[in-house]
């Protein structure tokens, strides 16, 4: 280990990852590959390829018979330019599904000041999405996204780093999920309720601020903590906290433990059961916009495969992580269970297992 670096280009590395998610009735799996390489002393390029292959049937599919996306492919490229203590980044991202096409570009700049004890960063992302609906070639909607990001990273002590981040995002256009539906009381229906399509506002602005810190212990280990507050103009407030421990005293092995808690309120117009059809101008029953709590526990192990140069690589590591995620929805009800009257169904909860296996090589 040397001194903390001054402004530097991203480290040259290659990661090959396989991910697997199983929860809420669906599985998502696929590869993800990242390559970062320097071009001379001042430039660095990065390429990323990511695939999500989705199968199964979530509770939304089961209860409202809506189809779901089957495969998503993401390609991303970034160019970094280092000049003195300033790092400039330009990037593009293309994401494709059978019924959704996302395109975005991003620009970022970071500057070290105060004898490199403080790093200021800012960034902007502009996205343009095209939304379709399977089985409905006439359906076509658009979504524009703008995101502004500010960040300050501070050396606090010789053992502690802290980061303050702020981001505001504005979306304009079609924000619904084109398949999801809301339910309303319908006395003419045998089950007592009916379904109609969601109606969201066509604009959403949100802000989030996060404070995170890492502290190096007297031995080769670190603890970290994070808090994020989120608020948007749909009425959602959310808090997330994360604490973790990284242990690196064993030869070649790094162990990670982490706990995360997340809680959010519901959007103002959200309801699990509206009193009648088209009861409001905006209608939502997405569980993602409902009131709920989530707990996550992560365990990770990294094993250094080689430390002396091998072929074109300086070092390499194999990594395995396991995340256990639970979510307890306070108001979103499980319609798979029959109840005596609508609204008496039990609330829904899910538990998910997430596995990642990846190899990392540094050039």
């Amino acid at each position: 280990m040397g001194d903390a670096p001054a402004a530097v280009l991203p480290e040259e590395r290659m990661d090959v990852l396989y991910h697997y998610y199983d929860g809420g009735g669906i599985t998502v799996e696929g590869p993800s590959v990242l390559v970062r390489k320097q071009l001379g002393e001042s430039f660095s390029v990065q390429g990323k390829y990511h695939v999500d292959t989705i199968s199964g049937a979530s509770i939304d599919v089961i209860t409202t018979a809506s189809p779901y996306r089957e495969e998503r492919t993401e390609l991303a490229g970034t160019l970094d330019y280092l000049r003195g203590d300033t790092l400039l980044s330009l990037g593009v991202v293309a994401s494709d599904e059978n019924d959704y096409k996302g395109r975005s570009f991003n620009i970022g700049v970071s500057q070290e000041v105060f004898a490199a004890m403080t790093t200021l960063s800012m960034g902007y992302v502009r996205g343009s999405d095209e939304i379709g609906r399977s089985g409905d070639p006439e359906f076509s909607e658009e979504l524009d996204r703008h995101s502004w990001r500010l960040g300050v990273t501070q050396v606090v002590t010789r053992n502690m780093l802290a980061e303050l981040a702020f981001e505001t995002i504005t979306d304009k256009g079609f924000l619904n999920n084109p398949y999801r539906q809301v339910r309303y009381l319908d006395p003419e229906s045998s089950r007592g309720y009916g379904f109609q399509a969601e109606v969201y506002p066509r604009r959403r602005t949100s802000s989030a601020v996060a404070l995170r810190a890492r502290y190096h212990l007297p031995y080769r280990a670190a603890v970290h903590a994070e808090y994020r507050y989120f608020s948007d103009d749909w009425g959602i407030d959310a808090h997330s906290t994360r604490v973790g421990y990284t242990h690196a005293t064993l030869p070649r092995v790094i162990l990670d433990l982490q706990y995360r808690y997340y809680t959010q309120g519901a959007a103002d117009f959200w309801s699990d059961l509206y009193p009648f059809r088209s009861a409001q101008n905006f209608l939502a029953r997405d569980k993602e916009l409902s009131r709920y709590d989530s707990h996550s526990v992560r365990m990770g192990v990294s094993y250094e495969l080689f430390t002396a140069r091998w072929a074109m690589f300086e070092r390499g590591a194999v990594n395995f992580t396991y995340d256990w995620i639970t979510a307890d929805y306070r108001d979103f009800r499980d319609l798979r269970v029959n109840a005596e009257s609508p609204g008496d169904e039990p609330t829904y909860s899910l538990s998910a297992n997430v596995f990642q296996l990846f190899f990392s090589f540094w050039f």
Partner: protein
Amino acid sequence: MARLIRCLIVLGMLASVSACSGVQPWVQPYERDRLADPIMSFERDPVSAAYLQKLYDIREGARGASGGSGGGCGCN
């Protein structure tokens, strides 16, 4: 939202004041060996971190300020 903006303005003012007040760096470059340890990185494994963050973004109403400078994915 207004509280957030006020908070940021105050933090910005504090940063400006500290930058102009003649405060000297209190951690010298040769004292930063522990800070340079990879276990102190906010994003030690970028692919894994981006994947997990995306997983949260899809399931949760909240988004943004999730860390990781540089490329950014712009994909919520």
